[in-house]
């Protein structure tokens, strides 16, 4: 187990380094950063001065090293737009993104797992078809369209839910559904497929032969095995959601990290964009690693070698 975790950890660190290099080089791919900073009316001399001031004239590797070691200490530089430390800016916005992510994945799990289990117990039944319909819809509808439709129906026409903002938990209802619905189809189908597979297995027949009741067979013997891949999928999805809530946050004007990213791209605020890309990637890497660990911990065949 320890060996397994160390291997995965090493892999995660390698991926993180690669991502950091890419997000660092972003600053230069977007054009001359000194020119961008100096503004349109700047003369060549001004630009040269800014280049030296910000250290853009030094070798790339040195700049990267400096940037990385500062980033590791939580210093991502200063936002071009807000003239505030990027780290503070992000920290402030992250709690909204995290809340949304946790609500979204919970919503997805709480709807997808029961639906997947019932669909597997009664394949081709009405409820199975309904689950399939929901999952196809979830995959076909882009989040922005679904979000806008929700606003049209529940905010504008019915006036039940606020269309934007983060003041109360009611404000989070629609964003949670839109974000969660994005993760639901995959979780539902993996639960269904896993349960169907496990329910046909020999050890389920053994459990029945022992005299175990249906509830016990389903939940103790079957779900325990079918849920293992679902848990790790959910962890990966969670990583996606924290980084991928840009669309949902923009639609519902939730001022989270995703919304900040959207704004910062528009304002050419490169240090902020750079840091956000790094943070979102780290979420993804951390949750993928967590998913591997959870998987190993839930499956004795990996845990107990």
């Amino acid at each position, binding site marked *: 187990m320890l060996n397994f975790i160390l291997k995965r950890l090493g892999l995660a660190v390698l991926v993180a380094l690669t991502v950091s290099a890419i997000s660092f080089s972003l600053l230069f791919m977007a054009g001359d950063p000194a020119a961008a900073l100096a503004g349109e009316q700047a003369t060549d001399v001004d630009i040269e001065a800014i280049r030296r001031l910000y250290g853009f004239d030094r070798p790339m590797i040195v700049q990267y090293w400096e940037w990385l070691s500062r980033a590791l200490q939580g210093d991502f530089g200063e936002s071009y737009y807000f003239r505030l430390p990027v780290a503070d800016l992000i920290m402030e916005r992250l709690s909204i993104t995290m809340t949304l992510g946790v609500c979204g994945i919970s919503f997805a799990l709480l709807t997808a797992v029961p639906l997947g289990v019932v669909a597997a117990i009664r394949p081709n039944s009405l409820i199975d078809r309904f689950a399939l319909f929901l999952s196809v819809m979830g995959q076909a509808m882009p989040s922005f369209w679904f979000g806008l439709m929700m606003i049209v129906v529940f905010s504008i026409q019915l006036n039940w839910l606020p269309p934007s903002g983060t003041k109360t938990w009611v404000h989070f209802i629609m964003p949670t559904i839109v974000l969660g619905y994005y993760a639901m189809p995959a979780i539902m189908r993996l639960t269904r497929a896993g349960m169907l597979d496990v329910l046909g297995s020999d050890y389920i027949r*053994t459990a029945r032969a*022992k*005299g175990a009741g249906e509830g016990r067979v389903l939940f103790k013997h079957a779900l325990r095995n079918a849920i293992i891949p679902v848990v790790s999928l959910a962890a990966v999805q969670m990583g996606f959601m924290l980084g991928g809530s840009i669309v949902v946050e923009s639609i519902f004007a939730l001022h989270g990290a995703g919304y900040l990213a959207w704004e910062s791209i528009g304002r050419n605020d490169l240090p902020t964009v750079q840091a956000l890309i790094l943070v979102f990637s780290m979420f993804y890497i951390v949750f993928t690693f967590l998913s591997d660990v959870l998987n190993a911990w839930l499956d004795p065949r990996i845990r107990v070698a």
Partner: protein
Amino acid sequence: MSEPVLSVRNLRLDIPIGAGTLHAVRGIDFDLDRGETLCIVGESGSGKSLTSLAIMDLLGKRIERKADKLVFDGTDLTKAGARKMRALRGDRMAMIFQEPMTSLNPAYTIGDQLMEALLLHRKVGKAEARRRAVELLEKVGITGAERRLSQYPHQLSGGLRQRVMIAMALMCEPELIIADEPTTALDVTIQAQILRLLVDLTREMNVAMILITHDLGVVARVADKVAVMYAGELVEAGTAKKVFDAPMHPYTRGLLRCIPVPGKTERGSELGSIPGIVPSLVGEVSGCVFRTRCEEATEACRGEIPFRESADGRHNFRCVHEAGRRAGVEEPA
């Protein structure tokens, strides 16, 4: 004589498939006394597993079970509901399957799974269940039983897992154990050990056993009674001695062409192969299903086939010919 522990009359199993119905099992009759071992033999697909699952009521909803009589230990199984069957399964009747590698739940320890068998049926505490689990692991010849309890199935070899399955089947001291090819999936070198263990323990604990096997050598050594199945029918049944000494049905004779003799028969001699194909069992099945391969077949074999019972009921077979041979044809020297 006391009541048989299991009494089966005219057991039929129908499986709806597409347009028609597969009459997978059509007429099984036998009695099994306490502590007796019945071996069921027959080609692959002859309905042996279906028959055993039907007794345990583990067939699933799709397969329809009918029987004139299906009485186990005083309980009419044709009338027993799901709750009654659950109470019997694992307690009074237990089953051992062919695949030890996949028959144990990978997510739980050996101890959990053994103890569950007892805890489901007896009002005992965890400690008592644990004690019983250790006792049975020792009984099936597993060393370091205490330590094994906390191990997972994947940490055990196939032979050990099948020993665990045997221990699990015996947890509640059942009246009947059904073992469906319990050694087929195991290494040849340990097949004999596991079988010996099963036979010894069922004898010692006076448990009746239905043993499904392809190995006629095994049948010759362990069976009290033999049932021969062909294409879903019981074609011959009787005490092992009678069936081996004087097989009546042409199919049984085909199987025993290289007649196994107790003690002398080589282990692993497979069922003799008889040329020809099995007819479709979808839709109405009439006449003798063996007639496409039978050396003794006549026109009459297309009609009604009588089930011939011996005077004492201890040797029965299904054939138009009174002695299982065409009249006037002498047995080849």
